[in-house]
């Protein structure tokens, strides 16, 4: 064991807790999950912890590419990005500082231990939820605070900071062994997989935004503007905004302003006369 690893490993563990989706301290998700939880930021923070910012950022950059389309909706996620980021980058920094190793480890951790711990923690929280509910039933505000905030956060801290710390502090040997003994084809497969993984997040996003199969046309247009026309994401956002505005404009059946009222009038007078019609029926 390399005792100089103690503080870096500890800090990385704490960061892994602070970047968790359930951490409140940095204005909830805004500063936690969405900032500290991003591998790009993790690279900087772990780099600072290990005193080698440049290597940290290079690892973060590589890992971020894999998880750029990470998605968390309805509480479910496609990869445990925080464990992946801090576990992967942390272990890589403790060993070879090689970004490719960071990516491999991040994928392994994110898609296995990470998801297991994540779902385990979700299950455990039901226990605190039940107690919080009871507290609410009894108008026990202290109970709510304890069971909504204090106990769950202790749980999370234990489930995140501790294993990540231990993994980095004690895992060096294992990782070195892995690096040396894993056949090259496996590393290659994992690398290729890293390129493909964002496809899942994007597929999930498509599931959210594509309401109608014909809208795949817009997806293809966006794809083509980047892949063929080599436009940047920002440029495409503006072009997409134009298209969206045109869609909005066309979705109304108003003409040029007064048309709207016209149609409304038509509908209304039709309705009026409809009433009239019913009245007529009465006589």
């Amino acid at each position, binding site marked *: 064991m390399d005792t100089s690893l103690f503080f870096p490993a500890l800090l990385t563990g704490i960061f892994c807790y602070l970047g968790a989706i359930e951490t409140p301290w940095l204005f909830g998700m805004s500063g936690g999950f969405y900032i500290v939880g991003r591998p790009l930021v993790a690279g900087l923070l772990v780099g600072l912890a290990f005193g080698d910012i440049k290597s940290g950022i290079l690892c973060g950059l590589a890992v971020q590419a894999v998880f750029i389309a990470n998605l968390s909706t309805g509480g479910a996620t496609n990869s445990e990005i925080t464990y992946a980021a801090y576990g992967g980058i942390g272990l890589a920094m403790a060993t070879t500082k090689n970004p490719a190793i960071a990516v491999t480890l991040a994928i392994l951790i994110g898609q296995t231990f990470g998801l297991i711990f994540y779902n385990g923690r979700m299950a455990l929280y039901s226990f605190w939820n039940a107690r919080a509910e009871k507290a609410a039933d009894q108008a026990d505000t202290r109970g709510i605070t304890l069971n909504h905030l204090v106990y769950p956060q202790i749980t999370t801290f234990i489930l995140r900071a501790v294993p990540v710390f231990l993994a980095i502090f004690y895992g060096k040997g294992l990782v070195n062994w892995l690096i040396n003994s894993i056949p090259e084809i496996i590393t290659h497969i994992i690398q290729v997989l890293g390129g493909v993984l964002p496809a899942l997040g994007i597929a999930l996003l498509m599931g959210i935004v594509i309401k109608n199969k014909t809208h795949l046309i817009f997806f293809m247009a966006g*794809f083509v503007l980047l892949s063929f026309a080599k436009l940047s994401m920002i440029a495409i956002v503006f072009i997409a905004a134009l298209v969206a505005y045109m869609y909005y404009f066309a979705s109304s059946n108003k003409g040029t302003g007064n048309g709207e009222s016209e149609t409304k009038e038509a509908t209304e007078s039709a309705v009026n006369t409809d009433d009239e019609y019913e009245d007529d029926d009465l006589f």
Partner: protein
Amino acid sequence: MSKSDSKSVGQDKLLSKHDLNQIWYRWGFTHLSSMSYEKIQGHSWAYSYIPFANKFYKNDIEKKRRLLQRHSMFYNTEPQTGQLINGIVASLEEQIAMGKDVSEEMPVNIKTTLMGPLAGIGDSIIQGIIVPILLSIGMSLAKGGSPLGPIFYIVAYGIIGPTISYIAFHSGYKLGVNAIDIIVGENSKRITDAFNILGVMVVGALAANTIVLKTIAKIPMGGKTESLENVLNGIFPGLLPLAMVLLGWWLVSSKQMTATKVILIMTVIVTIGCLIGLF
């Protein structure tokens, strides 16, 4: 009865700026701090209303109990854009506390009605557009290991996220129940649809920008061999990534597969592709 109507009768406001901000940031900090699949953000409501309960119902334990109870139910939305709902509900709870003609089911109904739509639009704007774009800028700035990349991202999202949250909450409070018309009305449907179109195009670009899959196969071409990747790029750059994401989408949406299953299938494809020398 609209909020402005009721307010014109008797006392107009109950919540001080400070009360309101307390409701806002209590949610802002703890929305997911006890998230389980069972309740997700449910208890954060009760937690947000603790000071309110203590202040306005300190003598009426029953009302306090009912308040905390009705804000302990399952709830889930995108927590930042979703502050709109927190704002609306704050205006309703204010009415209730003032004894106005607003039923106690009202806030509950509004929460269940609006949380779905706002989750959809919020997730796609934040996770589908804002975050990936800021990240791709940050990543390009971080090339070569420059801290400018992560710092740019931290500053940019650090401003955008809380700002959305703040504006959403206060707009919701200001509009009160009127906000509902705006959120679920005809025009809002059109706006949401338009945002979806925007989202779909940006997600298409995102797919082209982030998925990486290259073939290393070679094909014979006029005597010599030529890299298949080059040939494909000449015809349709990004064809393999496109195929992957369309496969993923089809599995997720038409075959209703879970994310884990899709990952397994992709792993299998990649493994076979690597073994036969395709990737």
